[in-house]
């Protein structure tokens, strides 16, 4: 009873809280990092160095008036943000933060596929949000956004196939263990795949330079134009949770998860003194930082350029990578 129900439920509770808190601080981090990149200070008023801004923001969003357009579809208008957030959170169930069983909720044998499939559900939140708003621009933006999401999902999934080929397993823990056995992080074995997954991740989370669905400078304000208050906050949470998911997945698939650098080199064994989960979070933090860094640096793609990049560059390269991986795998 304890093992089958209590501990998992506890883990889930802790994880959910951790993720949601992490998301709010992720927002703060983004504001701070971008501010520093632009030689500004960022939020400074709430708490020392604006630390408490992370708490003030959710409070503000929670107490704001919840506006629902009269002609919106009530059921879907409510459902859409939930459909957007839930998959982003569910994915964390199979993300291992460390090698020990304590650090993951479950390790299922199709973990990576699970992540792919559950994130593919997230697109409903966006389409339905656009449709339920019953407003022209959100609808068009949501169709755009979902087309973008689906296109890049294909590219990412294709790329992950080559990683699966390399690792020989679909289990997230198994993939890390495979890296431990081979002694090489897959980022070195599959650099192309890493780049593709990361670019695809940027696009799937609607981040710069692929942030057109939310680009206020352009025609449409995005699928959540009509949303406000807590419903809007849910979309917000989903987006940042997705960023964290992508970072975690990239860390696990390509940079050894909780492994120390060069896990097979005995001479570096002293690095094991640092616990695995610290390694994990350190690496993940690097990717979170890169996400923000890119946003501060790059201009935005145009829609047709974005689709062209996805279909004519990423997908062919991903397919080529699969073939190459297969050939190498067979030859070795």
């Amino acid at each position, binding site marked *: 009873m304890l093992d089958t129900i209590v501990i998992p439920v506890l883990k889930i509770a802790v994880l959910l809280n951790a993720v949601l808190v992490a998301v709010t601080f992720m927002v703060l981090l983004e504001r701070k990092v971008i501010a520093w990149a632009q030689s500004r200070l960022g939020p400074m008023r709430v708490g020392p160095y604006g630390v408490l801004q992370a708490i003030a923001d959710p409070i503000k969003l929670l107490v704001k008036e919840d506006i629902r357009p009269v002609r919106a*579809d009530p059921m879907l208008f409510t459902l859409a943000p939930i459909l957007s957030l839930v998959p982003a959170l569910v994915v964390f169930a199979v993300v291992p933060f460390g090698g020990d069983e304590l650090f993951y909720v479950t390790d299922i044998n199709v973990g990576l596929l699970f992540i792919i*499939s559950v994130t593919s559900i997230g697109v*409903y939140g966006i389409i339905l949000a656009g449709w339920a708003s019953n407003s022209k621009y959100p609808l068009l933006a949501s169709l755009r956004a979902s087309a973008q999401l689906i296109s890049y999902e294909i590219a990412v999934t294709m790329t992950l196939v080559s990683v699966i080929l390399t690792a020989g397993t679909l289990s997230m823990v198994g993939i890390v263990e495979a890296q431990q056995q081979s002694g090489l992080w897959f980022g070195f074995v599959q650099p192309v795949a890493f780049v593709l997954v990361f670019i695809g991740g940027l696009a799937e989370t609607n981040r710069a330079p692929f942030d057109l669905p939310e680009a206020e400078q352009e025609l449409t304000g995005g699928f959540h134009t009509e949303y406000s208050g807590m419903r809007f906050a849910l979309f917000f949470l989903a987006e940042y949770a997705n960023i964290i998911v992508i970072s975690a997945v990239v860390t696990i698939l390509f940079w050894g998860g909780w492994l120390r650098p060069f896990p097979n080199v005995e001479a570096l064994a002293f690095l094991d003194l640092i616990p695995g989960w610290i390694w994990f979070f350190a690496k993940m933090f690097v990717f979170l930082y890169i996400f923000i860094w890119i946003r501060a640096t790059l201009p935005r793609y145009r829609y047709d350029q974005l689709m062209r990049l996805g279909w004519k560059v990423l997908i062919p390269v991903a397919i080529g990578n699969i073939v190459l991986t297969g050939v190498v795998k067979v030859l070795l």
Partner: protein
Amino acid sequence: MAEAIAFYTLAVLILGLGVAVITTPKTVHSVVFLVLNFLCVAVLYVVLRAEFLAVIQVLVYAGGIVVLYLFVVMLVNLKRAPEAHEDPRRLARLGLALSGAVLLELAGIVVYSYGRVTPASAPAAAGPLTGAGNTEELGWLLYTDYLIPFEVASVLLLVAMVGAIVLARRES
């Protein structure tokens, strides 16, 4: 016991959502119910220890096919209600009655037949289809015994893709 709870819960959800799919007046709602239905079916697959299929169900059905439906529903922005016109010669009631009758008959056959199967001949619930081997075994089967059907299926998909593009393209 746990399986029974899971089964009944899911059965109720699946059937309820199924009914919702075919009864809701708004097409978009219908699609949403369909997605939820498929998600429940996926969970049912997990109960049946077919994790791979569960994931595929979510990925392909919920994440792919139904999104397509949703897209079409949104592209087809109708100027009048889709079911406004009804042909008087429809035999909807007869169809309803017949479906009910067939369901009853089938259920009768099933209950009757399985009731007579001795428990010994029915294999135990915990088969060997557990653990990590499942997905791998399925892969083996697909790429060995069922290789040709698998290839045929892939060709079918290709043809369908080309066909869909040709059909949906605007003449220019």
